[in-house]
């Protein structure tokens, strides 16, 4: 089969083949039965970073913009959620939505300089400055954020039920992450996603065939912000402590590493990258420095040996995956 969705039956079977991917979250439902509480915490953290990677990849991989405001989106989502839960005792679902919304607004804000024609390194430097500026705000707006000590987020509640253990949180996280990853996958496979790709490959050509590039650019940044802001909200609920240091330059490099090690513009790659880069450093948690060395070596190895990231391994192993999710 050459074309992916030629005739009607092809299209139907193509759609059917995609349902296989829903087996993954279903299989993950049983995970807490076989792992201990510490591993459960790491798994929850991995889920958070899956969203971080998937969201970042929309801007970095699909839209092709060198924007480094991801740690800022993450922090804004976490602070929005944390603030609502700490000061206003808001229920977790409401705070979660607020985190997603705040992240989305921040994303749209960051897209504005991109619309002014700021690209490549200029955009990278500007977004870097934006991230550090946000960190300064967390430290100095201490009436709301409690300054550099950070704030203690209360236990998240869901419809009156308090999420105490990491297993409780796991099921909530799994649902949220599955929903957002599926939504992102659909978005990227739609007309909108193709417009992102067109802008990445040649912005002028895209504009010349009638794609409203400015609108799609804001949309991509905003969606990236929503996904990463939600990750921040989950992070606040998981770690229950939000402080400025959690969103510094090192955190940004971790996000960058997740996307690049997993594979640019690959959804599955981001999931894989998040799993590898969240789990691996835990082995070195008592040895300062080794975690950074490991991430650096992984990044260099991927760049030199496997430019399309871990996703290219997956594509080689599975034809179904290659057909749907891996394009050159």
């Amino acid at each position, binding site marked *: 089969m050459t074309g992916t969705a030629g005739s009607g039956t092809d299209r139907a079977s193509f759609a059917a083949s995609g349902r296989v991917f829903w087996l993954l979250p279903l299989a993950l439902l049983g995970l807490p039965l076989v792992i201990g509480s510490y591993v459960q915490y790491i798994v929850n953290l991995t889920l958070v970073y899956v969203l971080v990677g998937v969201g970042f990849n929309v801007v970095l991989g699909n839209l092709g913009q060198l924007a480094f405001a991801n740690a800022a989106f993450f922090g804004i989502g976490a602070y929005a959620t944390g603030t609502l839960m700490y000061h206003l005792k808001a229920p977790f679902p409401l705070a979660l939505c607020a985190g997603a919304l705040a992240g989305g607004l921040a994303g749209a804000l960051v897209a504005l300089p991109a619309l002014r024609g700021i690209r490549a*390194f200029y955009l990278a430097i500007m977004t870097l400055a934006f991230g*550090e500026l946000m960190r*300064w705000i967390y430290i100095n707006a201490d009436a709301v954020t409690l300054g550099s000590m950070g704030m203690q987020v209360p236990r998240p509640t869901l419809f009156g039920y308090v999420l105490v253990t990491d297993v409780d949180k796991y099921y909530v996280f799994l649902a949220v992450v599955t929903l957002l990853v599926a939504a992102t996958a659909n978005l990227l496979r739609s007309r909108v996603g193709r417009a992102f790709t067109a802008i990445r490959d040649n912005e002028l050509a895209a504009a010349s065939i009638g794609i409203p590039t400015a609108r799609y650019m804001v949309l991509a940044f905003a969606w990236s912000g929503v996904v990463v802001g939600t990750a921040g909200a989950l992070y606040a609920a998981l770690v229950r402590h939000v402080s400025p240091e959690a969103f510094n330059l090192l955190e940004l490099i971790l996000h*960058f*590493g997740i996307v690049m090690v997993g594979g640019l513009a690959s959804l599955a790659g981001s999931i894989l990258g998040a799993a590898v880069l969240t789990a691996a450093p835990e082995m070195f948690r008592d040895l*300062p420095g080794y975690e950074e060395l490991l991430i650096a*070596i992984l990044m260099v190895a991927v760049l030199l040996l496997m430019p399309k990231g871990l996703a290219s391994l997956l594509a080689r192993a599975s034809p179904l995956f290659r057909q749907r999710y891996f394009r050159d």
Partner: protein
Amino acid sequence: MLAQLLVSGFAQGCLYALVALAMTVVYRATTVVNFGHGDLVMAGAFCVYVLVVLAGADFFLSAALAVVLLFALGWAIQAGLIRPILAGPHLSLAMMAIAVGYALRGGARVLWGREVLPFPKVFPQGIIKLGPVILSPSDLIVAGVVAATLAVLAFVFLATPVGKTAQAVFQSPRGAALVGIDVGAFHRTMWGIGAAMAALGGILIAPITLLYPDMAASTLIRGFAAMTLGGFGSLPGAVLGGLLLGVGELLVGAYVSTKLIDITAYLIIILVLLLRPSGLLGRPAVVRV
């Protein structure tokens, strides 16, 4: 008061200028923006720390050795890591620079943990009074080193064929190779020079800011701010931007709020890019359609 602020800001700005200058040399010669430059600065300072404090070597000998070592490191980074992916997208190059910097930082942390180290007091102590203005000898040394570096660079780029070579390689590596320029060797040498200048910056900065693996972040962003303000890719612009940033930080701190010192650089980056992306001395970028 104002005179003192201007002079102190000038001294501080010389350090920023040196960082921005090194990044500009690498950018101008190779079109790669070195996101790992801050970590090279840190590595240079750590080299001197090891040689002076742990091995007990003479300071000037150690400094010279650190500069040579970092030159070799920069050369090796280009030859081993940057060159194989030079044909790839900007993103890969940015990531490689970041990964190298991250590895250096991890290495420093493996060796020294999370502590902050006092750098040996190598410069003469005491104060120099010039009317109402008080200077420290280290201010004069920093300004002298930066001025000397700038003079050497200006000579090399304006009065020798290196300047024309850089221009040719920047505009079209392929065209430069066709007329007989060894582009690979040129790139390697320029990375080496950039890293050697980073070492120089580290040696001058560390006595002021103390020494720790994470010193790279603020160094890098201030270097970017200086480059952006002066005009990305302009050598005189990098110096002017660095000096203005140094003076600006102190003026903002004295007349507005000390809390704003830390974000002056970020605000400068954002405002300049929004209002005048070409900076003070840069030429507006022309997009080829």
